[in-house]
């Protein structure tokens, strides 16, 4: 291994992460040096900081700043920029959605924002991880913050239970990934993605077995069946804003790594792994959607719907083409707005009633037409109804799979669209037809309004004018040079 050459080191490439570190330290310092400092102001400060970092990343994207650092352990390419922007935007939305909720949490309200930023920082590193070692470290780095965040309601038994489940399974996952990496290293003698990609033959048992272990670990992180068991309980127990965060951002970051592993490192032995991803996808969609029908709790419903959505997303990965990758990234964008929006409505309700049952949403249309309409749009976008974002995402991802002649996968996916219609529409029915138990109008605070409007704007904009976002995704997957176009 060549020694690190400090002269070649361009810290510009890692600047977003450095700023993020600085930002989280500032937030933490302000919180403990000035305990009287308003926590809401801390939240806005974090969002402003992340906004600036996002601007820098946009500058990178437009200015063509690319490169790798530390012997290409850390890479900044268009894929990394896509996911970093995604992570920062979703984290900002989550922080906005947390402000109201956190007013009811008695202790450590400042540290909450610090932990969120800290987890986001880990995930930004994940988007850039370019070897198996940094894959492992960044994955654990980002999960670390979540262990604490899930247990944030320390007097709530459900929150504690969720944290313990999350922790034990998370550690188990880490062990699996580490074992897989050791197998890969043992059979190839390297941990760098590019060196593995350059190997002439990749059919050694150790490599395939190791790859499977890594897949299992990443499957846990994205919550795909049969590695999903933690998802519903953790989603239900965790504080709702944390659930929102958990439901979108770590999945995106894990998918970034997943894509790098399967598309650029093992892109040429597609037939060896595509069946595995396709099986994950089929199980996730079917199990997620069917189980979601029986749910009475909105967070659990969204958890199972999230499992099903991951199944849809994995269709794009199973296709194993550049078009599949484009579709996957575009789908993630559509999922971001619909999912954060739907969770924002749940947050508003758990602020109001301290519960998150579907029954509580009954008659929402009478109490707040805006909120009811927003929820309608978010659920229909998740279901994939035009002219909303989810429809384009689904058509795109199915088209990618049809190109690869994966008819069984597409058929299962299409049947699942129908199943998902059922439970989303049941919620719609409750919102619009039932009479509310309470008739007091719901007042929305400013930050919640911003989140809801951002969600509405996102699902409609991506639905009626997807071209710029598709181009953004297409540019991001241009890093996968060895893939078939479609």
């Amino acid at each position, binding site marked *: 291994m060549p020694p690190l050459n400090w002269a070649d080191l361009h810290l510009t490439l890692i600047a977003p992460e450095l700023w993020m570190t600085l930002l989280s330290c500032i937030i933490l310092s302000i919180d403990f040096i000035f305990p009287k400092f308003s926590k809401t102001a801390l939240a806005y400060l974090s969002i402003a900081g992340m906004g600036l970092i996002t601007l820098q990343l946009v500058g990178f994207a437009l200015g063509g700043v690319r490169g790798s650092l530390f012997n290409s352990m850390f890479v900044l390419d268009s894929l990394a920029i896509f996911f970093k922007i995604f992570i920062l935007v979703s984290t900002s939305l989550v922080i906005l959605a947390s402000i109201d909720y956190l007013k009811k949490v008695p202790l450590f309200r400042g540290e909450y924002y610090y932990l969120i930023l800290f987890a986001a920082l880990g995930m930004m590193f994940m988007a850039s991880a370019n070897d198996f070692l940094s894959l492992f470290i960044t994955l654990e780095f980002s999960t670390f913050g979540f262990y604490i965040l899930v247990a944030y309601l320390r007097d709530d038994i459900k929150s504690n239970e969720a944290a313990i489940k999350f922790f034990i399974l998370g550690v188990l996952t880490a062990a699996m990934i580490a074992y897989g990496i050791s197998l890969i290293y043992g059979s190839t003698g390297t941990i760098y993605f590019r060196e593995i990609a350059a190997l002439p033959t990749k059919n050694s048992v150790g490599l395939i077995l190791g790859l499977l272990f890594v897949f299992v670990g990443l499957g846990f992180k994205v919550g795909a069946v049969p590695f999903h068991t933690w998802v519903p309980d953790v989603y239900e127990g965790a504080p709702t804003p944390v659930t929102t965060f958990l439901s979108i951002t770590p999945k995106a970051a894990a998918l970034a790594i997943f894509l790098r592993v399967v598309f650029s490192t093992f892109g040429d032995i597609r037939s060896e792994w595509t069946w595995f991803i396709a099986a994950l996808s089929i199980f996730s969609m079917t199990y997620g959607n069917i189980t979601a029908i029986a749910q009475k709790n909105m967070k659990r419903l969204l958890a199972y719907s999230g499992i099903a959505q991951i199944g849809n997303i994995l269709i794009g990965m199973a296709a194993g083409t550049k078009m599949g990758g*484009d579709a996957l990234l575009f789908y993630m964008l559509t999922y971001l707005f619909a999912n954060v929006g739907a969770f924002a409505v749940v947050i508003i309700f758990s602020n109001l009633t301290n519960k998150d049952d579907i029954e509580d949403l009954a008659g929402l*249309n009478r109490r707040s*037409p805006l909120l009811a309409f927003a929820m309608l749009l978010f659920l*229909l976008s998740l279901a994939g*109804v*035009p*002219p909303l974002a989810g*429809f384009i995402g689904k*058509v*795109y991802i*199915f*088209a990618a799979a*049809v*190109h690869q002649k994966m008819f069984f996968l*597409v*058929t299962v996916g*299409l*049947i699942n*669209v*129908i199943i998902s*219609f*059922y439970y989303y*529409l049941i919620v*719609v*029915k409750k919102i*619009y*037809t039932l009479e509310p138990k309470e008739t007091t109008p719901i007042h929305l605070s400013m930050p919640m309004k911003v989140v809801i409007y951002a969600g509405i704007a996102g699902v409609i904009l991506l639905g009626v004018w*997807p*071209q710029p976002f*598709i*181009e953004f995704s*297409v540019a991001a997957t241009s890093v996968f040079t060895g893939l078939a176009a479609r």
Partner: protein
Amino acid sequence: MSASHLLSFILFMPFLGATLLFFVSNQRRAIVQGIAVTFAGLSLAGSIYAMAAYDFTKGGFQFQESYSWSKELGISFFLGVDGIGAPMVLASAMLMFAGIFVSWHIKDRLKEFYINLLILGSATIGVYMSLDLFFLFFFYELSVIPMYLFLTIWGRHTKGYLDMKKAGDPLSDSVAHFFNFNRSSKEYAAMKLTLYLSLGAVVALMGLLLVYVDSGLRTFNILEIAEKGSLLKAKESLYFWLIFLGFAPIAAIFPFHSWSPVGYAAAPAAASMMHAGVLKKLGHFTIIRICFFLFPAATQQWMPIIAVLCVINIFYGGLVAFLQKDTKFVVGYSSVAHMGYIFLGMASLNLISLTGAVFFLFADAMAMGLLFALAGYIYYQTKTLDIPSMRGLVTKMPFVATCFIIGSAASFGMPGAMNFIGELMVFLGSWKIYPVQTVLAALAITITWAYYFRMIRAMFFGEPDPKMAHLVDARGWVDRLPLVLLASMTIFFGIFPAPFLNVIQSGVAPIIARMEAPASIPAPAIAAEPASLPIDAIPPAAEAETKTEPADAAASGGD
């Protein structure tokens, strides 16, 4: 490409109206009603102009507009109407306009009702004018969800639901066991309708994606696929069946019809008008537009099966309608039966019968619109649609009774109404090809007479029921306008059908020509007006053609 923005004007006016309505308070009914009427009216005016200005001597797709939407996926927003689309756009705009007056008196959430109606209207219009498979599907899917909201929010429970509730056991049938709502509840009707149609839609989506991928053209443009899609010849039957089975449920062909009568019965008047009038016809229209136009050989091969199914539709629909006790169920099943006549006309695949079928589509839209509007008005007055509990309504509401009789007469094919001409042409065209089916279908008209006369007698004549003494006739212009509009359309164009027939024939002729000589004339519709195709990134077509040549040669050699 063309300077005409007529079609996007027709399409987007209702959308614009719906968007504006979001910003109006529900308390200000006059403004809500005003906005809805204005924008639906603008759309109607545009579609009347499109129909009048359509040049049937030239034929082909006119008023084309095309905007690139996604280069990556080869989707363009491509609008254009031919002789089949133009009348159906007019029918949709007309029923939407009439529907706004019909639902004038709705008390609960009128604004949301109009938003739904306008979105439904423009989605239907969008299907009728899309020349891009993606947008055709886009608007088709878009039309399903407003129906769900109509049924669940403003719908009514059907049949004996309320009696069952009184008996204290509201959830006591097999459906309830599984779905947690009763077979007669509006929720059941709504969910059944949505799931049926969505299931059809995903089957169709599979077919459309296959066409998109297998054509190798990277485009959803229908005209381009028709012209260059030679690679599709190999598996035409597969595409035909996927797309047919995808869109046939919405056309209520047996055995996929069961969502439809219960759906109409549960829906509010304007929604049933739209649904029976134009939404259901989306099925026939998309089958003609996609299957007939793109896959002429498979269509010829498989339509005989449809010719059998349609007779079942006619008899089954008719006999069930005879037994119904609810006005909307009678009209709903009669609509299922009428779909059979249209499918018979389509199955015969000749100029007269297909023209007749398309004409019948328009005629049925008017008649069904009229009947469901009246059923809605009667329900609004009497709070029941149960036929046995109504008697002698003619003394209280002569105007409504007159219109109802006109609508029924049109529906059972009285000479002088548009439906008569449509039916006659279907029979004339089908006689040579399917004599048995034609005779059976013609005989079944007697069933139609029977149940309509029975319903009219029971509802309007006889000793007036004292309980119905409070009823008032449709008096104001708001109540009368939609009825007069639809009734006069039916009668006027029943007597002077030529303008419609000319336009429809110009749309049908190229399809039939393609059917009869698929090899020599690739796409006459395009030949009539060469469309400058919007997508320039086309993969090597030459390569595609060279590949298929041996197959073609083998096929012609085999012949």
